[in-house]
């Protein structure tokens, strides 16, 4: 009897300690995320000039959403944002190939890992200006190189809307490659060698090993990379903002975040901006929810 009482009191104390330790992050979540999010949802239903108090804003129902769905610029921004995501499969294939080549732990391969990770840690602001110069049509390094290999009229990367998006995609792939490589290597090192040995005894060739063992077993990494790629890609802002001016040639480079930023902070239409931001949140939420559903691992003990 006394023993039970003692255990109960310990558990009560544990409750207090547990909540004490997570209290500050919970407050942070409430103040800096949930409160602003609910304000965004409310603001998206109002006509709200940014300078005004949100409580004084006129309630207009779904008007902002209707305006948004009728605005060609919004659809263009969404199209551009999703177009950039073709960088995700390109990055996956490249990083998988490089990870396979680097996953042998000799001295120089460790050096290569460190080198490939350099673009990941560098400032996207600094790098955007460098890429803008590399892709310039007169005197840019890329077109000079294309001239050298015999392409007399290389594309006008920064001026022709047919190519502008490629600049962003190339830069995004280049910048993210190192991170995906490291995650793939980690995934590959978790695979037991016995699988490969058993398969080799059965006469499997290198391609079989890749297709039947490596790819299925690193699926969680691939999945994680796709989802984080989509979440990050949906929020693309800095690269198109700095490499191209305004919305880019023929509106070809601006993204949904640039769209909502400009409407809110330049045109002061914060109600409309909030509606766009909610659509963005819904997209990210749906993608993440699908991941949670398929993976079912976040938060669960394994």
């Amino acid at each position, binding site marked *: 009897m006394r023993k039970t009482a003692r255990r109960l009191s310990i558990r009560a104390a544990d409750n207090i*300690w*547990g909540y*004490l*330790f*997570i209290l*500050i*992050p*919970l407050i*942070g979540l409430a103040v*800096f*995320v949930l409160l*602003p*999010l609910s*304000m*965004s949802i409310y603001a998206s239903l109002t006509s709200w000039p940014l300078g005004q108090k*949100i409580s004084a804003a006129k309630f207009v129902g779904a008007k902002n959403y209707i305006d948004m769905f009728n605005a060609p610029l919004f659809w263009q921004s969404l199209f551009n944002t999703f177009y950039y995501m073709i960088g995700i499969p390109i990055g996956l294939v490249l990083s998988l190939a*490089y990870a396979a*080549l*680097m996953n042998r732990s000799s001295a*120089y391969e460790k050096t*290569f890992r*460190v*080198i*490939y*990770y*350099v*673009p990941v*840690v*560098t*400032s*996207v*602001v*600094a790098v955007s*200006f*460098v890429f*803008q*110069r*590399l892709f310039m049509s007169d005197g840019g390094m890329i077109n*000079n190189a294309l001239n050298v290999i015999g392409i007399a009229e290389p594309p006008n990367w920064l001026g022709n809307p047919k190519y502008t998006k490629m600049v962003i995609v190339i830069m995004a792939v*280049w910048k993210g490659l*190192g991170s995906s490589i*490291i*995650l793939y*290597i*980690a*995934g590959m*090192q978790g695979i037991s060698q016995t699988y490969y040995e058993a398969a080799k005894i059965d006469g499997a060739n290198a391609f079989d090993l890749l297709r039947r063992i490596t790819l299925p077993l690193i699926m*969680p*990494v691939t999945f994680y990379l796709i989802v984080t790629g989509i979440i990050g890609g949906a*929020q693309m*802002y800095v690269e198109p903002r700095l490499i191209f001016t305004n919305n880019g040639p023929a509106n070809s480079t601006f993204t949904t*975040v640039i769209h909502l*930023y400009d409407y809110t902070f330049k045109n002061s239409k914060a109600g409309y901006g909030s509606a766009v*931001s909610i659509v963005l*949140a819904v997209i*990210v*939420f749906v993608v993440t929810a699908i991941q949670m559903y398929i993976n079912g691992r*976040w*938060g669960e003990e*394994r």
Partner: protein
Amino acid sequence: MKAKKRVYDTIIFIFLAVGAVIMLYPFIWMIFTSFKPKMHIYLVGLLPKTWDFSSYLQIWDEIPLVRGFLNTLLYAVPPIIVGSLVSVAAAFAFAKIRFVGKNVMFMVLLSAIMIPFPSIMIPQFVLFSEFRMLNTPWPLILPKLTGNVLMIFFLRQFMSNVPDSMIEAAKIDGCNYFQIYWKIILRVVGPALAAHGVLWFIATWNDYLAPTIFIKNEIWQPVTVMVAKFNEQYAINTHVPRIMAGSVMLLVPVFIIYGVFQKWIIESVMFSSVKE
């Protein structure tokens, strides 16, 4: 057989080396270009024909770089130290303390990852404006003090490797949870915490969108925003060496920090990645 393996290894090495050149070339080009005189930028050749330091003198002259670096340190160091201590405590609670509603609370906290910053930045702007905090350091400091959800997630995973017996032993010795956290857990997570702290520091250093929204006056701007403004100004008259000098100033500190911590960073990213 051995010769064949050597050929194979050489091909792989060449493949990796070409990739490494592509990874590093933009930085090398940036550094050399920043030392060129303006009229030399169309000359062929990577190296400057004459070394010209005027772009650096110009940037030091034109923008308060020291102030910018100090601002960035103010936004990156104290808040991240406090935020890391908070995150370790929360990760410890989620990994080792049994309390009612633990899993629900963890999921609630984790849901923050799903909410993109652009979806909450407008109300954040309004809230900070209400509290007269726009154009002050607070909008870039306060949200970090309450911890970092991704860090909590990764450290919780890391701590599940700490044996329960260690904590039980400390309890028997009369330690309460705070003492365990302070004396044992912080020490155990040390290297992982440092690596994630450094990654958080680098992310803060590179942050651009939040500071442009919350801070319009130059004296509180982080160095990234100052340099971006400088570079955009010279993009108009295509003064390429100055733009590259700006980019170099932004990258040098990151290169140094990465150079010092690279081993930890790579290992920690590998360790805390999705496990299967």
